[in-house]
């Protein structure tokens, strides 16, 4: 990780006073175990160039992190790419210039705009070259992005950025102090209020009118709680319809439909939400009149933690039965699920390989024996009405069935079982393609 600044023109040599570094002596300091080095490859009255670089200790760098047990933790670009770590580490060495506090006799040069060329890199970023240029061009730079060499692919992901233009040294350093971490994908340290203060201080005088201000604030502070504290934060009055994709609406419709159906059932005291994910449906089942026990079954721990939070947040409301989140899986036998009133599989089966379903339904219908089983799944025919890039509605869908396929499968699962099945549709109906979601209701005969 390195940064070099070239200044051309008369009085270029003043820069050595602005950064308070003797051009004759290579500079080296230890900064929290990292080496910070600075030297002037060129130094004359008309043209000076200094380079500052940081040499972290690669072994030290990988200690004390939460992802110690992942190989990518040990082989990564943090040792090389410019980042907030780089900015933090060089700040002291360049403090005089950044703060604009050179010896008094050079104070007048602090604001002086030189013809400069500032290079830094390598950068590791998800931004395109164009997006990088968009960050610097509005504040008066020409931007050039250079790529590293790759022998395994056409374009290397390693990039090196050179900015040129007329800037004061202080401003140039302020710009990159904010924008290098914004470009970088990664934060090496914990973000807190001091970040807000830093952003406000170094952003002063240029960020206010930057067209990408919101993007910069967002990428610099990451968390909403911090972003909203920044003086550069602007509350956006977003069009509320924007977020409400048809998919989200369909989700709610589905829950509503399922709840309404369960309400009509005579027996609904014990309900199982099988494959409950983050518990969105379970929590609504908790408010269903007559429900006494909701089991929210989900194999993913991450999802279960979110579900439990969700269940507890509404804990105080009246008429609420808090669902119990249990670790469970459709591929195992689970005695806790036997003889319940209702089992719901809401948008679950399409995440399972088709040929594994018969065994699962055998277990549910013959071992768990719910009085009612509700299964929803997408109607593949309806997909033509969505403008989809992919074949299926979700990356993880292993299949999406037409209405006929669904009926055929449901019939094969219920053969030789005491269940009667009826099929319904959920969502806006199309005369040729039916409903976006199809729902099968299995009722145990005589109950």
């Amino acid at each position, binding site marked *: *990780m*390195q940064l*070099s600044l070239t200044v051309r023109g008369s009085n270029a040599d003043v820069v050595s006073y602005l950064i308070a570094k003797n051009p*004759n002596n*290579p500079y080296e300091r230890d900064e929290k175990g990292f080496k910070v*080095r600075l*030297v*002037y*490859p*060129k*130094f004359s009255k008309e043209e000076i*160039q200094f*380079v500052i*670089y940081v040499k972290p200790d*690669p*072994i030290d760098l990988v200690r004390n992190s939460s992802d*110690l*047990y992942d*190989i*990518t*933790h*040990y*082989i*990564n*670009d943090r*040792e*090389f*790419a410019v980042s907030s770590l780089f900015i933090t580490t060089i700040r002291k060495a360049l403090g005089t210039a950044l703060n604009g506090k050179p010896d008094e006799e050079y104070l007048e040069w602090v604001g002086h705009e030189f013809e400069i060329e500032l*290079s830094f*890199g*390598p950068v*590791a970023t998800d931004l395109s070259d164009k997006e990088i240029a968009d960050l610097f061009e509005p504040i008066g730079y020409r931007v050039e992005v250079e790529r*590293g*060499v*790759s*022998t*395994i*692919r056409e374009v*290397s*992901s*390693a*990039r*090196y950025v050179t900015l040129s233009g007329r800037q004061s040294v202080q401003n140039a350093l302020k710009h990159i102090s904010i924008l290098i971490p914004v470009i970088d994908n990664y934060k090496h340290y914990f973000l807190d209020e001091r970040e807000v203060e830093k952003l406000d201080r170094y952003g002063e005088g240029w960020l206010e009118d930057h067209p990408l201000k919101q993007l910069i604030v967002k990428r610099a502070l990451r968390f909403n709680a911090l972003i909203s504290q920044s003086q550069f934060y602007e509350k956006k009055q977003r069009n509320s319809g924007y977020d409400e994709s048809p998919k989200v609406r369909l989700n709610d419709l589905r829950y509503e439909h399922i709840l309404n159906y369960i309400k009509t059932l005579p027996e609904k005291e014990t309900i199982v939400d099988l494959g409950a994910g983050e518990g969105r449906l379970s929590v609504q089942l908790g408010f269903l009149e007559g429900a006494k026990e909701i089991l929210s079954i989900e*194999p*993913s*721990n991450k999802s279960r933690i979110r579900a439990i939070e969700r269940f507890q947040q509404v804990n105080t409301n009246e008429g609420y039965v808090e669902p119990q989140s249990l*670790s*469970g*899986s459709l*591929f*195992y*036998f*689970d*005695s806790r699920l036997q003889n319940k009133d209702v089992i719901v599989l809401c948008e679950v089966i399409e*995440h399972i*390989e088709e*040929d*594994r379903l018969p*065994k699962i339904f055998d*277990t549910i219908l013959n071992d768990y024996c719910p009085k009612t089983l509700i299964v929803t799944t997408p109607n593949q025919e309806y997909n033509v009405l969505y403008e989809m890039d992919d074949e299926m509605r979700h990356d993880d869908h292993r299949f999406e069935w037409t209405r006929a396929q669904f009926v055929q499968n449901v019939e094969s699962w219920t053969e030789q079982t005491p269940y009667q099945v009826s099929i319904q549709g959920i969502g806006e109906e199309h005369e040729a393609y039916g409903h976006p979601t199809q729902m099968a209701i299995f009722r145990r005969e005589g109950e």
Partner: protein
Amino acid sequence: MTTIHLPHGGIVLLVGPSNTGKTTLLNQLIQEEQILASEVVSSDQFRVLVSDIEFISWNGRPKDESEALFQEYQQISSAAFDAMDYVISKRCQLNKLTFIDATHLREEEHDKYLEMGKKYHIPVIAMVLNISETELLRRDMERTFPRGRNRIKQQYQHFKNTLRFIKKKPYRRVYMLGEDELQVLNVKRLEHPLYIDVENGIDFIGDIHGCFEEFLEILIKLGYKEDDEGYYIHPEGRKILSLGDVLSRGPRSIQTLQFFHKHVTAGHAYMIDSNHGWKIARWLDGKNVKLAHGDENVAAEFEEYEQKYGSEANQVLKEQIKELLLEAKSHYIIQKNGVNAVVAVHAGIKDHYIGKQSHQISDFCRYGDSEGLDEYGKPIRKDWSISHKSSELILWGHDPKPQPLLVNNTLNIDQGVVFGGSLTAYRYPERQFVSVIAKQDYANVPDNPLKEWERKRLAPPNIMKFLDGYSVLTEQYGEIMIYDDGVKPALDDLSHYTVPLEEIVYLPPTMSPTPKTSRLEGYLEHPMEAFDYYQANGVETMVVEKKHMGSRGILFLFRNKDIAKEYIGRETLGTIYTRTGRAFFQKELQDQIVSVLNEDLVKSGYFEKYNTDFVLLDAEILPWNLKAKDLILNQYAHVGETALLDRKKLKDLLQQAFESGRDVLNWIQEVDAGIENAEVFNEVYQKYCWETEGLNGIQIAPFHTLAHSSETFFDKPHTWHMEKNKEFSEISRLFLETEYLIVQDEASMKGAIDWWEEITEDGHEGFVVKPVSYVTRHRGKLLQPAIKVRGRKYLHIIYGIDYLLPDNLSRLKKRNAGKKQRNALKEFSLGVEAVNRFVKRESLERVHECVLGILALEAEPIDPRL
């Protein structure tokens, strides 16, 4: 002449007042070497042991003194009895014979020892010395410490009472010995009825259930020949031992029983007591029993017999059979060179029952551990086998399993011949199985246990067994604890990402690098340390195999689609999955590969040649980028390119500064070295990547042939596995041959090191050192199944671009591979266990608990660079 029969182990209570001659009698028996001195305990002896005092006399003392002395004596006696009873109970536990030399005149003393006998399942015998009062008084006068007239008279009164109650006590035997009997006493020690010496070998036979035809067939197969008198005799003098239930359910119970009556009587065979046998024995004994579960067939056979041969002959036969069945022992202990080797029992046994006899033990051995009845009135069987700890192999039958089932050093050899399964014989000490397939399903019951087993084999595992953590009992490692911390992420994986549970019958273990880092400068790992490890653990021959840099893959390839359904419940030609149980290839590519492999294997006649329905292979699949493309591009290529760009840019700038006269020579040298390291790094990962198109470019190196449908190959040396590797490489062009060397002396070791240097300098990952045996132990301790030794260049992509800088290397050398090694052993044992269970057609749940355990162990935090 009275003969006293002494059991092998038990309590012999001598009963009689002082001066009856108990001690004299016992001393005489010791002198005649009929019993051992250590078999006798006496209250006198223990009084001395605990207090140094044998006897206290309080006769003729003033009242206060005599009371004090009496109290002291009571105290000493009480302590002496406690100590004595403790010793007796320990001897009972160990099934030893103990004579108790004390007066035993009080009823509670009798009850105490009878209770002890019951507790330890050993017989209690009483020897009553019945001497007249006059004689006792006379003898007392002659003693060194006379007990005194009053005390003798008092004791005699108690004794007369004892004679009354003793008859009602549940003694195995009571010997009444008067003065005359004591003159000429004959003592006979009974041999231990449960011990058998293995002699020329024993053939254990599982439940026959009247399948006489199959039984004779197996005898012929075992090498028995019928002689002129109708005896089946083995030319080597081997004997037959039936694990019971030779009768009921099947077609020819009487003939089978007659066979055993004849052969047991002649000493050619043994037969163990069993539930059906006991039922028929009691029926023959005139007890009121209800004949069901196939026992009614036996009664019918007797009726038929009576019609054919008359009631007299039938009566004779019934007597003979009754005797045979009533005499049958609960179990036998087979000794080899005087050491217990095998316990043969019908339904089960607890370790502390072994070698003992009681009603309770007999019941347990007949029925096993039963935990009440299920909803259909069938007994819920508890698993007694899990608590078996002692070293004997327990052979049992009773509960039909499709294959001989070895669990925790217990072996079930009832393969349900009467249910259409097979009859199994286990040859000991050869430890070989011989089996005969049933001619038909004779029992013809709706709940056929073999079909039931098969039907339930692939039932979904019970998740409640795993959720809170559990343990797996493995043959190789013993009990392995699996904690819930690991189970939860593993269940998550198995619920979202892996191939179906039925298809994951094995997962490969993690592999440890050299336990110690290299002693050489400039090396983190070196083959020497791997060789050191094995040599220090007594391994003389090692196999070193080139480590292909690809991704681990398990290939489960079936003979045809239909056959797969029988094994994994799904029609498929096969499946290929990763070390975490996920599909290795996208579906279309997998189908292509599997069908090509199937074609090649079928064409070469592989399945016919080895008479197998499938082959299970553990392999490395190349190239690396097949599985790791994202990792390579986003991680390795990105990092390598970034490093190189950084350093090259810096080099230019520093060079300029140097030329401008700045003193940065050191910095330049540093960055030069850095550029070189980055270039090595970039070269290394690219070595393992190449373009593939369809099947072109894909290579599969199967280095372990794990199993065929009827056997596993963990007993084969790695040289065998390498020969198989070669065989496969000749069968299909997709299979890649693996280079290997055998290391067994200085020269071959040096050769191996040179080879390692050569290939790793060329950028290859390195090699794997294995002990020649697949499973290797040293002083009982399981050794690492393999140790990887990775090359200097390769390790750049593991430990970082600059890991070889002396300052970095010295710190990296402090790594600790202890936990990695422990987990490697556990995962290895679980993997072996899983395949063994699968091939024995155990339930999915039993196989899956091993697989889930491996995934759970893999979820534990361990330095991924090891």
